């Protein structure tokens, strides 16, 4: 008669005691005491093989899958908060020369704004890839049509894209780019020399401009508020222009130190370039570089 396997209270088969004599049999296939065949145990080796197969073949298939998949082309106005870290393509026009940031003669990075007709996005490139672009004369400049692939970074303040591979930037340019400078200056945070300012936009029109767009402004300082001591709040300079609108310009301490004696004062008329931002639903301008702020009608700051 076939012996009945012993059961545990939960109803599972007891795999280590003999179902016939009830004595300990351990992991053996037959009971060493009475020779009864033990309930079947599955070999651990089987699971090991299955795991290695799943890991390696699965990884191979996943790799093949992502390589076969075309990098999606997105419109700037379709970029949403949930797309943070997405690796995507964007295509559009560059309206202003890229800004090149140098330190000690070396390129630390560059950035430019790409407009695809639905909105503008800030494109950033780190040092090594920026060097490649400069060496190959492919630093974007005003008028270029550009297509690139990179990874999106979406924060509450702005949307930007990091170009991780210089090879993923394609430029459609009618005239060849000028050769790279023979002796790059070792001044930090220097923009391209041909980065000419645009016509100033009225403050009242900022509501119609996309967040993240860099704009030229000419306005009068109404009020300056320094951040409380020890606070991480920004400096806040309220600007007003002929359109009647008043908009705050913000910048943090690090930039305030660079401004030094050029710190805005009430009543002063300024010409500046800043990024259109929003904070808690209110439009504001964010000053990105100290050199972007100068007295109206005056020469650009040295």
């Amino acid at each position, binding site marked *: 008669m076939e012996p009945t396997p012993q059961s545990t209270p939960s109803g*599972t088969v007891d795999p280590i005691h003999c179902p016939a004599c009830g004595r300990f049999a351990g992991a053996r296939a037959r009971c060493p005491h009475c020779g009864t065949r033990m309930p079947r145990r599955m070999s651990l080796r089987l699971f090991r093989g299955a795991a*290695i197969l799943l890991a390696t073949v699965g990884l191979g298939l996943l790799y093949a899958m992502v*390589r076969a998949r075309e990098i999606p082309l997105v419109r700037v106005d379709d970029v*949403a908060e949930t797309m943070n870290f997405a690796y995507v393509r964007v295509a559009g026009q560059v309206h202003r020369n890229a800004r090149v940031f140098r330190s000690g003669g070396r390129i630390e990075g560059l950035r430019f704004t790409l407009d695809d007709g639905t909105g503008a996005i800030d494109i950033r490139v780190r040092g090594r890839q920026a060097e490649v672009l400069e060496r190959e004369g492919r630093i974007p400049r005003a008028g270029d049509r550009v297509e690139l692939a990179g990874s999106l970074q979406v924060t*509450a303040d702005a949307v930007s894209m990091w170009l991780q591979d210089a090879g993923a930037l394609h430029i459609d340019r009618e005239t060849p780019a000028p050769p790279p400078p023979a002796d790059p200056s070792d001044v930090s945070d220097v923009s391209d020399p041909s980065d000419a300012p645009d016509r100033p936009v009225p403050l009242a029109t900022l509501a119609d401009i996309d967040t993240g767009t860099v704009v030229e402004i000419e306005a009068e300082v109404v009020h300056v508020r320094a951040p409380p001591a020890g606070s991480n709040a920004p400096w806040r300079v309220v600007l007003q222009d002929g359109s009647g609108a008043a908009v705050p310009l913000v910048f943090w301490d690090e930039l305030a130190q660079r401004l030094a004696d050029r710190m805005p004062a009430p009543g002063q008329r300024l010409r500046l370039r800043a990024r259109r931002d929003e904070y808690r639903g209110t439009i504001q301008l964010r000053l990105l570089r100290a050199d972007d702020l100068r007295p109206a009608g005056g020469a650009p700051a040295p």
Partner: protein
Amino acid sequence: MTAFLLVLGSAVLGAAASSLLSLLPALHVFNVMGGLILGLLALNEAGVVLPPEVVLPAMTGLVVGWSMLNTIPSILLGAPDESAMFTVLPGQKYLMMGRGYEGVMLTGVGGLAGVFFLVFVVGPLAPRYLPLARTVLGPHLHWMLWVIITFILMSEWPRGGTHGASGWARFADAWRSLGAGLLTFLLSGFLGFIVLYRSPVAVEMAFQNIMPAFVGLFAVPWCLFNVLSATEPPPQVRTASLELSGDVILRATAAGGLGGGFAAFFPVVTGGVGGLLAGHATAQRDERVFILSQGASKLVYYVGALMLFFVPGLGLRRGGAAWMLQAFYTPRTRYDYLMVLGATAVAGAVAFLLLSPLTRLTLGLIRRTNYRAVSIAALGIIVAVVAALTGASGLFVMAVGAGIGSLPVLFGSRRLNALGILLLPMACNLSGFGPDVARWLRLI
């Protein structure tokens, strides 16, 4: 006054909501936060914008509560997240001795000590010293990360090779677990490059790129092997006191605070790695100190990483919660920081008070329900969450992750090796050649 009540209510609500998660094994708070963020976006679309005084304390409460209460499924149901895997071995020993309740409460006391450490030690000091620490350590992060990787790989020890015939067979036996550890690290590192550079997950859900891989690497193998092994825990005893002294709590908090704090501050290093480093650095042999310190380390890691996002003058994004929140909110002033600190304290207290009744409830459920059925239900829930958030491609990534995550369990190596998914790509990125490797792999 309204803001105060809003913050208080939201923090309590967040901590209370996390108690539901504590009853669902293997479900990570970051998966739930992903779903909540989608809900917030839907509300925004509908014109309902919740103020920061509601969203931030609620999210903080959720993270604090989960970091404390997740101890329950970690120990009683054997479903730990990555940062709790060191607690589980001694914790499950407690469970198999019928002292699961005590194991959970000990870890909870560690968590409570972690809240004290964050609120009363880190809170006042962080705005003054962490920006400085960041400036000093910033240029050195890449080599420090490689040193940590080397330590993780080299501190793996052979678990065979001591019995049987000498020669190649014994050599192979000794290298089986070591080799599996290295293989796990390399395969998960490769998976990391794929999901970080060219994830198959739809771009609309890119903020959850890495989630399916993490679920596959850490949660699915535990559920699967719980189903297969079907361990039956013995009847559990509830105690009215814990075998603790002030000295034990202090030593454990120091060790846990160090490990969790390091993990929270340092990029990519997670609670599990922090726990490993703290365990070695402080060499605490007392099992109670070990369990307590791991409870503190886990809480300090998860909550501390979120807190760093709000430290004035620091603006550090560490951990999944901060990375998800950055798309919606930019903290700027002390107001935000104090709000999060307050929410942490309130939620920590609520979560600790919930710990005992929820543990008793779970023990009652275990008595009445088949352990295997609980694991199957847990597996079902996490698969459903991955499918809902990331679709079929996410499920595929999760399956591959599960294959890799099963290797350490089956070959007896450390599950920590599966953290290669973050450590390897990020170490390459911080060293400046991550994109080169990705290009060589033809991912970009």
